[in-house]
């Protein structure tokens, strides 16, 4: 990874929500760089804030603190027309292809909507663009006037993808785009996403809990635990050599289809807690086998090997 300007860079990003039990530190002090035309996989278990992180980056949520840079330009505070420009460059694909499409709008209307809202196209251009987009994501022309409830999950997700790429964005945040789909359909959609990345030069942030999917599609992977980044590394490196105890446990927990490989699980104590009013220090410590007194101090993400960052004070002793 050469030192050029990343397409998306976030510095010390925080997003807190107030909830019944106190303040939920959904995203807490995260730094990340995503290079052009690469895919950053973000993995973690439910409630770890991975989806909130993505939605904060594309400015669907307002960050509590920190900075978001798009192409080196600070977009944390932009409003009005500038925000509209930013949103055209950063798009989102949702997890649930059922609730993310307006049930009263046909395929054609859904795909046309972003083009229409940009007010840059004539009526005729709109029709042509819609044709082109439907072709690009592989929706048959006969489905043009179909409504979401008339289509299967895979097709619906394709419509969602067409809507996201309609305005030629640079960056797309994919929020578990395939986890609601069956395996055979999932593979079709993953192939489509990768083809579009090549053809349109897209940069992805791919949020998921499915490690085999993230391994397949990502160039770099960040692992989150309760709002914090615990480890980030290039994909190959991460799967070869996990340094954080949580990453180890997470990777060893994936059920493997190789029935001859003996299972070696890193056992975890207890259950995932919550990020509401957390104590300082490593949030994974209560479940960690290696936790000591030092883990109650705030941790920092440090570069242990080249491009491989870990947030664990005992990383050298453990490995």
């Amino acid at each position, binding site marked *: 990874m050469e030192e050029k300007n990343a397409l998306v860079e976030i510095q010390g990003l925080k997003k807190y929500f107030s909830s019944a039990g106190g303040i939920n530190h959904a995203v807490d002090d995260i730094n990340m760089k995503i290079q052009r035309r690469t895919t950053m996989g973000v993995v973690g*278990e*439910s409630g770890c804030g991975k989806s909130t992180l993505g939605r904060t980056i594309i400015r669907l949520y307002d960050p509590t603190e920190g900075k978001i840079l798009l192409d080196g330009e600070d977009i944390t505070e932009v409003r009005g027309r500038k925000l509209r420009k930013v949103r055209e460059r950063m798009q989102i694909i949702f997890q649930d292809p059922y609730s993310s499409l307006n049930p009263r709008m046909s395929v054609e209307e859904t795909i046309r909507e972003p083009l229409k809202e940009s007010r840059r196209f004539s009526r005729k251009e709109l029709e042509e663009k819609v044709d082109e987009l439907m072709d690009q994501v592989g929706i048959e022309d006969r489905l043009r006037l179909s409504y979401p409830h008339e289509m*299967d999950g*895979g097709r619906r997700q394709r419509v969602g993808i067409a809507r996201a790429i309609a305005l030629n964005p640079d960056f797309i945040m994919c929020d578990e785009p395939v986890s609601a789909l*069956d*395996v*055979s*359909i*999932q*593979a*079709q959609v*993953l*192939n489509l996403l*990768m083809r579009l990345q090549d053809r349109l030069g897209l940069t992805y942030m791919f949020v998921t*809990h499915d*490690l*085999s*999917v993230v*391994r*397949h*599609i990502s160039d770099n992977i960040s692992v989150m635990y309760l709002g914090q980044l615990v480890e980030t590394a290039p994909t190959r490196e991460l*799967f070869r050599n996990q340094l954080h105890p949580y990453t180890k*446990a*997470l990777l*060893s*927990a*994936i*059920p*493997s*289809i*190789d*029935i001859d490989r003996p*299972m070696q*699980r890193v056992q*975890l104590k207890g*259950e*995932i807690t919550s990020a509401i009013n957390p104590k300082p220090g490593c949030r994974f410590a209560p479940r960690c086998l290696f936790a000591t007194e030092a883990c109650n101090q705030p941790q920092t993400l440090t570069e242990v090997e080249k491009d491989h960052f870990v947030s664990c004070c005992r990383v050298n002793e453990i490995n």
Partner: protein
Amino acid sequence: MEQNENFLQVRDLVVEYTSGGQVVHAVNGVSLSLDRGQTLGLVGETGAGKTTIAKAILDILPNPPAKVRSGEILVDGQDILKLSEHEKLKIRGNKIAMIFQDPMTALNPVMSVGEQITEAVLLHNDFTRTQAEARTVEMLEMVGIPGQRYVEFPHQFSGGMKQRVVIAMALACDPELLLADEPTTALDVTIQAQVLEMINDLKTKLNTSMILITHDLGVVAETCDNVAVIYAGKIVEFGTKRDLFKAPAHPYTLGLFDSLPKMDDDSKELHPIPGLPPDPTNLPRGCSFHPRCPRATEACSREGEIPMIELSPGHFCRCIRTGGNN
């Protein structure tokens, strides 16, 4: 497949739904058998009929719209479908118990978890209340929940813990057969690993038979002895875990494996199965898979049932194009 000591035997089960004047062919002639202490995995995509089979075994299909057209379900030699409602009640929960996919909706939110399990115990045993409560605490501890949490309510438990409660409830009456419908799909991977491990331990300890319904081949690889692959309401391949994972034969099974992103393969393109599962109100003629099958020939679309072919002892495959290979 033809053994007499089989604890559970399903023969030619056909289940149909009627919806809006159309007939949905959910299960089309499924036969399977299960020995004591064994685990059978039912694998297939959404709408393949996996859950319908399990519900038919427990005889809890909503009728109407569902209707068992034909077939037998023998538990210990007794045909469940022919029993009276009273006799069925004895079997449900006592001999057969089911774990549902979503632990969030399977528990009553206004009753403590201990009470809920105790109630199930009392319903199926001749225990006194004290005995039943002792049994509940024992069950809770067996699934890794401290007995003190007896008095707590479902909302005080996390998803994984709730699923443990559901499992404890299902196991409380020593069922001989456990039907687990996607028991870990709603859970996170690290929690899933814990729950699967627990299920495996309990199974060996209690010698319970289990049918595990899932779409996740990884889960099957970790827990099952035998596997049945289901497509459009029919078993298309049946065999031991080793048969299926090391020598998959049916083109659909092969397609499923090819669709998975491999953990140890860096190739860019995945190889999905083209097309979509068939419309269950209007199944293709001949082999239901032939419109999506790369090996299909004209013979595959001819009218008539495709027979199960035994490729090797205990390994069956429903494909006329595969028989010769082995």
